[in-house]
């Protein structure tokens, strides 16, 4: 909003913050970058193996899942080496779970900032997702190594994973926005998040292919928004027999949109009282 002297004019009155929001987001774009940069820098300070943590966690989970689901339960792998099958799902799942967990706690972790400075609060949860994105790219390199090891050629559709990654991003962001705003008011949500993450790992098709789910349950199974993303990753990266189950995918995509839109709406609605209740 510019007045005739080309001055920056701010109006403050109840319920009026919406007006400058986009303007302010643009003004504070550097903060977004610096917060993400801070989180990345701080994350591995004073750790012995540093960034290797981003690789070790999904890698070990992959090993366990391969043994449990592939070797013991003998679930079908549809012509793909089991570790590759698991790891191609582990990537989006870890990205989703980390982003959601990190952004849910982000407002509480940055309590000091919220009560002492103004900036569009959405920068905080959004910047934490960037950190998980970096982890994602690191573990993606591991997947490539794994594929080389098993001499498995990725499908030509591989670059479609960007679309599914974006879908995971918006789902995680939406869930994160819901949880972080609720977390400000009710600290109980801090305890719910690890539960969602742990539970989600088993009800999502990470350790097995969702093709192993009986046909009549698949539509219902797709109500888990990560099912579409994970299936998409497998379809794009592994190709072959990992055909997409499209009706299920559209449900996941629709849910992603709903979760993100409602999360954003709820965040904006509660944002203005964060400083008062945090």
């Amino acid at each position, binding site marked *: 909003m510019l*007045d005739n002297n080309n*001055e*920056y*004019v*701010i*109006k*403050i*009155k*109840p*319920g009026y*913050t919406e007006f400058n929001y986009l303007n302010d987001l643009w*003004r*504070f774009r*550097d*903060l977004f*970058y*610096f*917060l993400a*940069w*801070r989180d990345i*820098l*701080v994350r591995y*300070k*004073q750790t012995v193996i540093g960034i290797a943590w981003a690789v070790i966690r999904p890698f070990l989970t992959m090993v366990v899942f391969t043994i449990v689901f592939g070797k013991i339960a003998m679930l079908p792998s549809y012509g793909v080496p089991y570790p590759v099958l698991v790891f191609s799902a582990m990537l989006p799942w870890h990205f989703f779970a980390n982003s959601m967990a990190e952004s849910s706690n982000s407002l509480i972790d*940055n309590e*000091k*900032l*919220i*009560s*002492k*400075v*103004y*900036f569009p609060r959405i920068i905080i949860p959004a910047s934490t997702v960037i950190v998980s994105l970096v982890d994602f790219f690191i573990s993606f390199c591991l997947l490539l190594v794994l594929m080389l090891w098993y001499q498995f050629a990725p499908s030509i559709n591989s670059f479609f994973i960007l679309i599914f990654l974006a879908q995971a991003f918006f789902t995680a962001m939406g869930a994160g926005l819901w949880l972080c705003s609720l977390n400000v*008011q*009710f*600290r*109980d*949500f801090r305890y719910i998040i690890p539960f969602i993450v742990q539970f989600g790992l088993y009800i999502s098709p990470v350790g097995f292919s969702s093709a192993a789910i009986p046909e009549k349950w698949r539509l219902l199974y797709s109500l888990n928004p990560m099912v579409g993303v994970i299936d998409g990753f497998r379809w794009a990266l592994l190709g072959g027999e990992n055909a997409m189950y499209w009706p299920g995918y559209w449900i996941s995509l629709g849910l992603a949109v709903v979760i993100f839109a409602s999360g954003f709406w709820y965040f904006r609605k509660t944002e*203005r*009282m964060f*400083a*008062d*209740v945090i």
Partner: protein
Amino acid sequence: MTEPIIKIEGLGKKYIIGHQNKGRSNYTALRDVIAEKSKKIFKKILSPFSNSNNDEFSIEEFWALKNISFAVNKGDRLGIIGRNGAGKSTLLKILSRITEPTEGEITIRGRVASLLEVGTGFHPELTGRENIFLNGAILGMQKSELKKKFDEIVEFSEIERFLDTPVKRYSSGMYVRLAFAVAAHLEPDILVVDEVLAVGDAQFQKKCLGKMEEVGKSGRTVLFVSHNMSAIEQLCSKGILLEKGSIALASNANDVLSKYRELINQSQVTETSSIGNETTRRGTGELRITSFQLLTKTNEPANEFDLGSTIRFKIGYKIIAEIEGLAVAIYLKSGTSSENISTFRHEVISEKLNPGDKGTVVIEVDAKVLRPGEYPLYIHISEKSVYSNKFDLLDNFVAPLVIRQEGINYFNNYWMFGNYGFFSMNSNVVSVE
């Protein structure tokens, strides 16, 4: 005449205070909300026609600010003073857009930078260099702007040698210097500053004040909250005195300061002053505090103390009903965050006391660890056992304890990070009569 740079009309801010969870942590747990809601529903089912207003969830409205209107012209340096809880910080928070007003309207013509705390967002694990960028961005600077001013900031902070050391290894003095240096290089149209000069050593504080004067002289507008009256005197041309959420006086700085001094001296305790006012005076009333005075080591009355000095608290009391001994506890809180900074409690008398008995107790405390600033005082007289009847409690009723900038500086020997933390201080009973 151009339009004022800040125009505030009919501003008010209401907080809702719930009293349901005494002694519990200060945030809402979902558990409580669910429990309360289901209790209400249950009550409704059992007695559908009763009025359900008398539940334990007593909610109280509290207007931190009410009906505030004033205008600030370009280039004004405005000092805002008032006692603790007068609404200064709330006003600054609204002006900085951290929190929203409940009513009223503010129009600001220019970019605001607010400094409600030094080193907001400093991360202990990051180096000085990294923190300059982070803090700058948090305060609203662009990356390009920061790069341009980087050398200047480093020079001002005097910490070149430690630029690549994590700030967790800085002394508190270095930390504050770096933090202020970043803030000092903001170039907003309006600078909003809260009690930030209460930290750092005297020399650096002078430098900061100088810098702020410079900011003011260059035509920018400064809003400054401080308990440091000499700083306001030096820096500000105009002043506003807030009292209980409204403007008591808006005039030039000197008038406002003298009115403030008057106000502080007025808040004397007597046997009956504001008894039953739950926010400032509570207690079961077997005993009443009749007087309270701060004294120096040589027993001279004082309101402000030098750094590192010894402070005496002289409390007079009168017994209303028979009691078995008494204990005196004094709590010092932080003027900026209201956290407890120090507590000392002494069992003063253990014999039986009869109605009509009067006495005075003097307690001395060695206040080496107190930084300059204002410390609200909470004076509680209770039964001698620890978990016991509280006879008379004065909560932030008397004028706060003020520590000046001058004196012997001991506190740089204590490591403090951002917050104030809790100290134990040596205290002892000087006399009981």
